[in-house]
């Protein structure tokens, strides 16, 4: 009753103001909570894969015809008044705003709805592309109109998916060409989104598997992208192999790691600081991810006759893995073949695994011994609340990284191996959400030819593994 009395004392004007502001707040809330996804069309061809915005005109979807053709060949435009005279390679096409007929080599081509000029851009209805493009391009196109994915000529990537037992319960997805999807994880699923890869649907859109961890893979298309959603009974992570043509999806967790808050930066880094598996409320199977830098066509430095850095780093990473396994430190090799991985792929794979330490291996003939690097985080703190700036993701972990580098340095010095600690503007160190250290292995004092000698590699790997084992055995470290 008190409420009704107090509201009855408000003037009608005040009530209107309150109601209006409530409506306004609601509208703001709705628009903030559900930002409208911009409509786009993706075009796949043998010369370029790209996406363009789609705009609505009179209730129909439209796209800029000049922008669409430009990546595919030689386009030129002449305008006289509002008339558009477009040349694509040797084909001429005229468009007139307000007219739903284009003239291509003087032959009429129906557009369905009218050609539109918007801010100097000539827009054609998306629905007309299947009529217009084969004549302009002189070849077939295949348009998945519901998802707005347009395939020119024989552009397309097929894939197969099957459960493999090595590693156990892993879903191996093989593509006919290199792909570069964005990967996201949600409870119970892992989603691969292909926007600039011409991935084509499989024979059946839902593939089911008789695996305890991975139950199905579902293909779908929407708004210029293809998606493969992998459903799992456990948290999953994806890794790339075979030059980006294979994606392996595996169960991520097994061993529980203590849940810790993000390590706070210390005024000075020191050894002996326990390094736990990140700040994520998840299980981490691996204490350390070892990443052999370079790979595939990106071979790194030339270290001598026929000797390239990518091979030296892989051999050393494998040796280090063996030394860590002997010490019972859970380790995963991020690159265990001649795969070409981008630094983004390395960072996102490592970040999905939530290790306590990411260790990246490089090799050089300059100087002697070992150089240990932590990230030189770029200037400008743009981390906002729970959202991390990708370039600054390492910032909260720098102290842990320096502590890990110090502990490894102590073990190397015990073995009289020259060691130097520096900061480096070296990707993906600044993208890693864990302690992150890069090692540049240099030759011994006896000369550059001994860089790859078994004895020297073993000597170094043994000391580095001892340093990591020291960290792993500290109370509070993840295991």
């Amino acid at each position, binding site marked *: 009753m008190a409420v009704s009395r107090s509201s009855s004392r408000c003037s009608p004007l005040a009530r209107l103001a309150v109601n209006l502001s409530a409506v306004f707040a609601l509208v703001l809330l709705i628009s903030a909570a559900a930002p409208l996804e911009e409509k786009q069309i993706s075009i796949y061809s043998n010369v370029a894969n790209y996406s363009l915005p789609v705009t609505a005109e009179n209730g129909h979807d439209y796209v800029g015809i000049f922008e669409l053709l430009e990546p595919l060949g030689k386009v030129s435009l002449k305008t006289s008044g509002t008339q558009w005279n477009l040349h694509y390679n040797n084909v001429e096409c005229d468009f007139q705003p307000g007219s739903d007929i284009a003239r291509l080599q003087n032959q009429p081509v129906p557009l369905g709805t009218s050609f539109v000029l918007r801010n100097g851009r000539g827009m054609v209805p998306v629905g007309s592309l299947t009529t217009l493009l084969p004549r302009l391009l002189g070849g077939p196109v295949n348009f998945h109109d519901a998802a707005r994915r347009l395939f020119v000529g024989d552009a397309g990537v097929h894939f197969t998916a099957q459960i493999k037992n090595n590693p156990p319960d892993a879903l191996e997805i093989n593509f006919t060409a290199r792909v570069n999807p964005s990967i996201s994880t949600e409870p119970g699923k892992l989603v691969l989104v292909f926007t600039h890869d011409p991935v084509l649907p499989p024979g059946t859109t839902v593939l089911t598997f008789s695996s305890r961890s991975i139950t199905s893979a579902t293909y779908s298309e929407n708004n210029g992208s293809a998606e493969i959603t992998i459903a799992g009974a456990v948290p999953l992570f994806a890794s790339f192999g075979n030059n980006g043509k294979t994606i392996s999806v595996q169960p991520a967790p097994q061993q529980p790691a203590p849940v810790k808050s993000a390590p706070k930066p210390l005024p000075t880094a020191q050894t002996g600081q326990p390094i736990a598996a990140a700040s994520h409320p998840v299980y981490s199977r691996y204490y350390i991810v070892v990443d052999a830098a370079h790979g595939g066509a990106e071979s790194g430095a030339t270290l001598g006759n026929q000797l390239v850095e990518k091979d030296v780093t892989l051999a050393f990473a494998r040796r280090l893995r063996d030394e860590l396994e002997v010490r019972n430190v859970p380790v995963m090799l991020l690159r265990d073949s001649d795969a070409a991985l981008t630094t983004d792929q390395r960072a996102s794979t490592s970040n999905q695994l939530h290790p306590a330490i990411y260790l990246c291996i490089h090799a050089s003939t300059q100087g002697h011994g070992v150089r240990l*690097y932590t990230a030189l985080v770029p200037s400008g703190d743009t981390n906002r609340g729970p959202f991390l700036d990708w370039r600054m993701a390492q910032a909260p972990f720098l102290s842990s990284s320096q502590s890990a580098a110090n502990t490894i340095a102590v073990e190397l010095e015990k073995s009289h191996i020259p060691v130097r600690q*520096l900061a480096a503007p070296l990707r993906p160190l600044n993208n890693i959400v864990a302690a992150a250290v890069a090692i540049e292995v240099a030759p011994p004092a006896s000369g550059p030819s001994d860089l790859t000698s078994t004895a020297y590699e073993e000597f170094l790997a043994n000391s580095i593994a001892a340093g990591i084992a020291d960290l792993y055995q500290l109370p509070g470290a993840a295991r």
Partner: protein
Amino acid sequence: MNPRQLIITVVILVAASLGMALYAWRMQKHALTTVPAAYSGSVAPPASGSTEQATLFVADDNSGELQPQQASIPLSEDRQQRAQELVRALLNIYLDKNSSHPIAPGSDVRDAYLVDPGVAVIDMNSAFADGHRSGILVEDLTVASLVETVAQNIPGILRVKILVNGQERDTLAGHADLSILYDVPSVNQMVGPSPSPSQ
């Protein structure tokens, strides 16, 4: 028109023609002397720039550190021009056959811009980046020496961006990240003195 008026008119016309001819000749001479000077700035050391003492931060592969080196170089008044001349002086040291930190033949700086507030953009040529040796330390030494040399000789430079052939590039030669702006104070950490006595 009587003969006296005719003579006066002819004298005035001849004087005017001579005057115009003299003016045209002087203008042409002026153009010939000023045009080459206006275009010579970016390809040769400034003809009129006075020689100044500058500290170049020279990379040394043996120690893996930067060694400050005093040099007497002709420097322009213009700060942008100055940045370019400093980088070119540094590159000339690296291109010498006895260099402590050799770089690829043909390496050069294409341009330098100063962008407020306190950002210098150094645009290097393709030969410099394409022929650069690959390695974390060797690339960091080059980047740090460029940044330090420009920042320590031109007051007010706080950050430095390195472009190659007018474009942003991922890395110098597979390692040093060129997609970022280098903070002058943090560059010390890249090649600073070793905390351990070795190496």
